[in-house]
């Protein structure tokens, strides 16, 4: 039986970009510094880019529990898209909402552009 030999093909471009995107997103998210106390901003002049938030929804009781770090990550991502390099986290909590999600992890903060 013969197997058809196919030449080695480069990864499919689409996957690379998808990985690249996911890696890039991971990189951009991690480049956004998280501050929890306004005092952390002493000696760090900043610009306020607006409020950002991140959520992680637990659709039903059977689903995996709402994860705050995911919510935080998503917040950082949003901040990164605003070209912020820091977030002053106002609050992160898991709330029970009577809407779509059985429980939801929500993180809120202000996206800041801190001058280095």
């Amino acid at each position, binding site marked *: 039986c013969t197997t058809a030999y196919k030449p080695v093909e480069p990864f499919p471009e689409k996957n690379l970009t998808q990985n690249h995107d996911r890696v890039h997103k991971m990189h951009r998210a991690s480049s956004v510094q998280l501050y929890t106390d306004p005092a952390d*901003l*002493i*000696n*760090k*002049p900043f610009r*306020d880019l*607006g409020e950002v938030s991140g959520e992680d929804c637990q659709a039903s009781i059977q689903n995996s529990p709402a994860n705050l770090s995911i919510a935080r990550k998503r917040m950082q991502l949003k901040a990164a898209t605003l070209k912020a390099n820091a977030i002053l986290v*106002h609050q992160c909590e898991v709330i029970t909402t009577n809407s779509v999600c059985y429980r939801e992890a929500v993180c809120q903060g202000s996206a*800041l552009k801190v001058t280095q």
Partner: protein
Amino acid sequence: MSVLIFLLLVLLFCVLFIWTKILLPKKHLRSQHQELNAHHQRPLTDAELTLCRTYLAQRQRSPISFTERLLSKLNLARNTCTLRDKSVYTLNHSITHYSLSTSVPELNRYYLDAIEIHLPPNGQPFITADNTIELVYTNQSPLVITLNGHHLLDDLNSSSTQIPPSTTTDTSIRKETSERVAILNVRRQTVEEYALTHANNISEALILCCALLLIFCSLLTPLKFMPWILLASFLIILPCLWLMYRRPPRGHLQEIRTMRGRLRPWGLFGEANPKQQNLSLGILDLHYPEHWYPYIQKDIGQETIIEVDEQNRVVQHGPLLSLTHEVKKFPLQNWRHNLTLAVGSLLILIMTTSWLPTGISFKIALARLQGEQRVTVTDIDQLTQHTLHVGDVIDIKGSGRCIVPQTYQSNRTYDFLPFDCSAIYWNTHLSNTLPPSPIIEKTQALLATTSRQLDPDNNDLKGLNPQLASAIQKSGMILLNNFSDIVLKTAQLCATSQDCPRLKSALVNLENAKDWPMLVEQAKSGKLDGLNVLLRPNSAQNLTNLVNVATTTFMSKETRKMVETLSHLPRNGYLFINGQGQLLVDQEQPETSLFDLEPATQWKELQRISAQLLNTPFSLSGIITSLQRDDQGTLHVVVHQQPNTHALWRYVVTTLFLVCLIVLIVANTLLGIHRLRSNFSRYPRIKQDYEASLSEASPLLLRPKE
């Protein structure tokens, strides 16, 4: 001040009185007592005391003529012989007796060495070679009460022989064959001899100076005291002048004794040093005027007739050498009196001119005498039509500008600092606002932006999203939401590199910039727009302090510069100055003086007070005492309150006093110098006169009278 001087004068008189009337006599008595060397002392018994007083009273000669009776009343204390103290002193001593006349016993003279004593007339027979004497001290010569055991006063009292008061001064010359010294005559001092003993007397000059000082004090005192103090000073001046020019009363003239005897030199080794020759007649040590020594050498060892006073000073030697003749022919030159009076008057003149407004007094008194022009105006154009003169009376109402003096006097108070409203500048077109100051504007801009951003009470967080704003508010932090504006405003104010170093470095640290120029560059290029800086409250306070210090420095400098600018008046116009420092405006006075305020608020206060006083209504009336035009063309008019009658009298008295002082200084200085020069040439002229007289005089004349 004048009361103090017055008290000092009274004190001075008391000291002089105590010194002359009490201390000097005591000192004289002590020296006399030491010389007598008494070996025993006992108190006077009552009987002896009564006898002494009776005897001394009887000895008192009753004045004959009316003036003698009057003067003796004046000099009662000096003429009356009284006991000095109530003790009897016993001593052993030989008595030297000069008998002038046997018919008039009381004209005999008795000496214990050089001290003259008084021996009652009945004591002479009891004199022995060595005598035991009991005596008491009187204010004249000591009185012998017991001689060799004989109580003289008792004997006198029992024989109740009344001592004939000497009415005549007949003299007789006892022919003395042996070497003994004879008293040929006793007379009173001549006026010239008396003047010689007071040749260097300056006490009258000092008294006159004290009187002038009293007049000066009267000019300082309130007007109701002035006449009384003036009266007191004239009551000092008039008697003093009388004392200076009157003939000395008889009681003051010493006794002069004409004596004949052989002059003996008693120098230690007999060398005759003409400068300090010591000669004696009998036991009397004679004191010759130095300039006579060349002329008396030939009389040493010869029988000579001389006249001596109570201190054994020779006043006449032979027929030629006579002090009276000298004074008559070459009058005494008491230049010390004149120069003392001149110096005293000069000192008082200096005190007067420095403590009293003498210039003003002179001008007002003069103006009153010449009659003055009255000028009443309410508009500057009206004033320009008048020609003002010193002494004119002016009455002006208008709107002018208080001046800012170049220097402030320490002895005055200024109610509207930095302005002095006792001087008004009057001209047309006066603005009442301060000229604009860019520095102040920049300073106020920086203060405004920092206070807006740093004020914890109303920290402006509008530019932030609500959550961030509330988070910051909750944290109590202070947010600078317009950091760029602070940097730019600081850069405008602190333009040079030396300005505001600490503020600049604080801003550089806050933004983590490389250095200040870079930070300013970023601010200018807009890179800092929208940048927020979060501060802890204490950092915010520090930044506030840094901004205040920086702005205060600029505001103080600018306020002073503005005050300096205000002190320069525009050209021309009139500057009215109230010579008594009284205010010419009726404005509400600030509670706190400008320079006592915080530097930051000084500028606002300066603006407020300038608006009030740069063009303010004023009113001025008085008499012009000075007119002067400065190089800016501004006419300075010094005005004094119109003197009421009392003040006018004070000005007139002050002016007369000044004229009197000047006359005294000039006259006494010229007279003093003239007398000083005459005094220097006096002795040479006396010598020339004597030499001329000696060359003309025949030998006969030089032999003593038989």
